[in-house]
């Protein structure tokens, strides 16, 4: 744009700042382009007759859309609702931040709240208060983190190596997806193998359309599922070709095979699709959260996810994103809290968006930290990627906050990357899949991304991927392959992961496996935060581990570094 007006040097400097590449828009509440404070959101209210909710947030039952009805009949506790709704919103907010009120005390109230009431509660809170509340309401006492491991070329060797590194760096869940969908069986196997090469017990998933995702799960090639989307208005839900009932049925289908799963939703999707029905983004997201609750699903991935550009562009949008994570936790769901999509050109803004989840801790701080450079991220880029590892570790150390990761010396990383690739080589050979060469293993050991790797024979790989499905290869075959190739420890840990589906222990809220292969969930690791000096705080061995960085000057001998 040409302009003749003279500009100040300072303006010119500011214009060059990356943050000005981000998009910002004005609010427009009439169409739902507003984060959480809209005059068009309904007033809270509930009426129960004969054990049935007959009026919800000012709407009589006859006018309920299918979300209203599902929420009224399945999510809200009819016995608790009238009493809970009678409590002023600000009092409930006080309860949330009052350390003397336990998590259980809060749940006794929130189980009876309507969407509009939940919205009213968080509207009384600023972000610091929300963080305090989240610290208490997170379901699992110990926070954790999840990574994406993908490859721009769908290279299984790369996925195995990055999965192993991510697993060693501390992630407890790993997610992959594909550029070429037919590659899925090989990449899912690679993820599963790589995950066990770092620390044992890391759970893996592969984001695909529902049927294939379920099939890989049933075969034990993946360990859990996450990409089961729900939406906050009826037309958008239908555009996604689902209803709360179809999704509830799918949830039971997963549980019937012993497979852990969570739903996915987030602010901004409805306005993005032009069908927000004039409601605020957060109000619609609360409906998604309650649909999840009503379906009997243990948890939810939310925090805007793929629509982050929408709340990110309006005033208080990132506050609303924190609020949606908080509300998921407030209604006793596991929360995998976003921070998983490219969000801003500005490093400063990327961190600011991250802190509200990192500081209080969530069940999974990122629902996809990119374990590759973003160019390899097949989820279209994450808020944090492999080049941010050191920054993340420093943030944890500076603030003594546990974001689930740790610094690992290069030699150990090289060792597990190499080991994962060799294990995959053995498994591929055992299963008669296309060979992995020594050159590939060498390259992937030292690689940063897919550009550093020799290309694979895609034709052979795709044929083999099909044969994995045709031959009915299962997780057990991977276990046997690992054992045959001499990676007995990895075989054991994968068998332990598979055995989990027999016991169903992982189906409970916020469940993960520890490196010792113990199940840790909201049932046996209940968040017991009760104010200063209580709850989870990094200490002992974990804190010592967090103190280590790539470059720390030795106190013993300042001419040297410890690391």
């Amino acid at each position, binding site marked *: 744009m040409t302009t003749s007006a003279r500009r100040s040097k300072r303006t010119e400097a500011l214009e060059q700042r990356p943050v000005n590449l981000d998009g910002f828009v004005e609010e427009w509440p009439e169409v739902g382009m507003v984060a959480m404070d809209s005059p068009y959101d309904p007033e809270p209210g509930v009426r129960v007759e004969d054990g049935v909710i007959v009026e919800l947030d000012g709407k009589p039952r006859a006018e309920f859309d299918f979300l209203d009805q599902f929420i009224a009949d399945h999510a809200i506790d009819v016995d608790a609702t009238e009493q809970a709704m009678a409590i002023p919103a600000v009092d409930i907010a006080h309860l949330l931040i009052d350390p003397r009120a336990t998590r259980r005390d809060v749940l006794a109230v929130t189980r009876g709240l309507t969407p509009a009431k939940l919205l009213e509660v968080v509207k009384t809170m600023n972000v610091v208060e929300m963080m305090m509340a989240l610290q208490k309401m997170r379901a699992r006492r110990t926070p954790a983190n999840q990574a994406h491991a993908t490859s721009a070329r769908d290279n299984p060797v790369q996925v195995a190596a990055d999965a192993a590194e991510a697993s060693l760096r501390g992630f407890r869940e790993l997610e992959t997806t594909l550029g070429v969908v037919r590659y899925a069986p090989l990449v899912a196997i690679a993820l599963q193998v790589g995950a066990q090469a770092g620390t044992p017990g890391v759970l893996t998933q592969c984001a695909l359309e529902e049927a294939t995702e379920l099939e890989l799960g049933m075969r034990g090639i993946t360990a859990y599922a996450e990409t089961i989307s729900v939406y906050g208005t009826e037309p958008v839900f239908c555009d996604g070709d689902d*209803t709360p009932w*179809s999704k509830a049925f799918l949830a039971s289908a997963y549980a019937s095979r012993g497979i852990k799963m969570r739903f996915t939703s987030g602010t901004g999707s409805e306005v993005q699709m032009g069908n927000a029905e004039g409601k605020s983004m957060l109000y619609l997201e609360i409906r998604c959260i309650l649909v999840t609750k*009503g379906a*009997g699903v243990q948890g939810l991935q939310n925090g805007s996810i793929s629509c982050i550009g929408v709340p990110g562009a309006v005033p208080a949008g990132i506050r609303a994103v924190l609020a949606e994570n908080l509300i998921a936790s407030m209604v006793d769901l596991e929360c995998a809290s976003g921070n998983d999509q490219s969000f801003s050109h500005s490093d400063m803004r990327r961190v600011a968006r991250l802190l509200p989840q990192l500081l209080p801790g969530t069940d999974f701080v990122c629902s996809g930290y990119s374990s590759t450079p973003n160019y390899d991220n097949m989820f279209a880029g994450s808020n944090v990627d492999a080049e941010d590892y050191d920054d993340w570790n420093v943030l944890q150390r500076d603030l003594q906050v546990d974001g689930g990761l740790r610094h690992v010396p290069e030699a150990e990383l090289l060792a597990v990357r190499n080991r994962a690739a060799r294990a995959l080589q053995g498994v591929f050979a055992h299963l008669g899949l296309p060979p992995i060469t020594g050159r590939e293993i060498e390259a992937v050991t030292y690689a940063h991304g897919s550009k550093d790797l020799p290309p694979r024979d895609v034709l052979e790989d795709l044929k083999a991927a099909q044969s994995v499905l045709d031959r009915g290869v299962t997780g057990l075959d991977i276990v046997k392959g690992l054992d045959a190739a001499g990676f007995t420890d990895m075989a054991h840990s994968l068998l332990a992961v598979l055995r989990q589906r027999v016991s169903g222990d992982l189906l409970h809220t916020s469940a993960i496996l520890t490196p010792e292969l113990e199940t840790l969930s909201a049932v046996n690791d209940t968040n017991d935060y009760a104010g200063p000096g209580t709850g989870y705080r990094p200490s002992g061995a974990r804190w010592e581990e967090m103190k280590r960085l790539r470059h720390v000057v030795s106190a013993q001998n300042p001419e040297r570094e410890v690391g």
Partner: protein
Amino acid sequence: MQRRCNVTPLTVPGVTTPSQVDLDPGRDYPLAARRPELLKTPTGKRIDELTMEAVLAGEVAPEDLRIAPETLRLQARIAEQSGRPQLAQNFRRAAELTALPDELVLSIYNSLRPRASTKQQLTDIADELESAYSATLCAALVREAADVYERRNILAS
């Protein structure tokens, strides 16, 4: 994969083994570690029989790595006692679905999509769930969907 498992008569509460077990989430969870004796695979194996040695000896089949309906009902009780009635209800529906072959599960899911089925088709599915699999909870969910879909005009025309 496609075989129809025997339908165990677990639809009447109070007469089944799982509900007779004394369970306390704080003491007994995780079941695999604390109460392994309660866990059997649908093929009748004990969980501690699923060892590496057994796998290598070819004594463990993929069918052995599935969850049994009894186990899901135990976990439902743990969910219930942990204050999660919806999660418990999901586990109970899942217990019913363990008897269904994979293809049928997927096809019912597809039938529940908007504008995918007529009311009669959904009613038929519910009847089949109930009569062939004793899946009363799932049948109720499908019937409920049929009513809502009719009211909201998202049945197949």
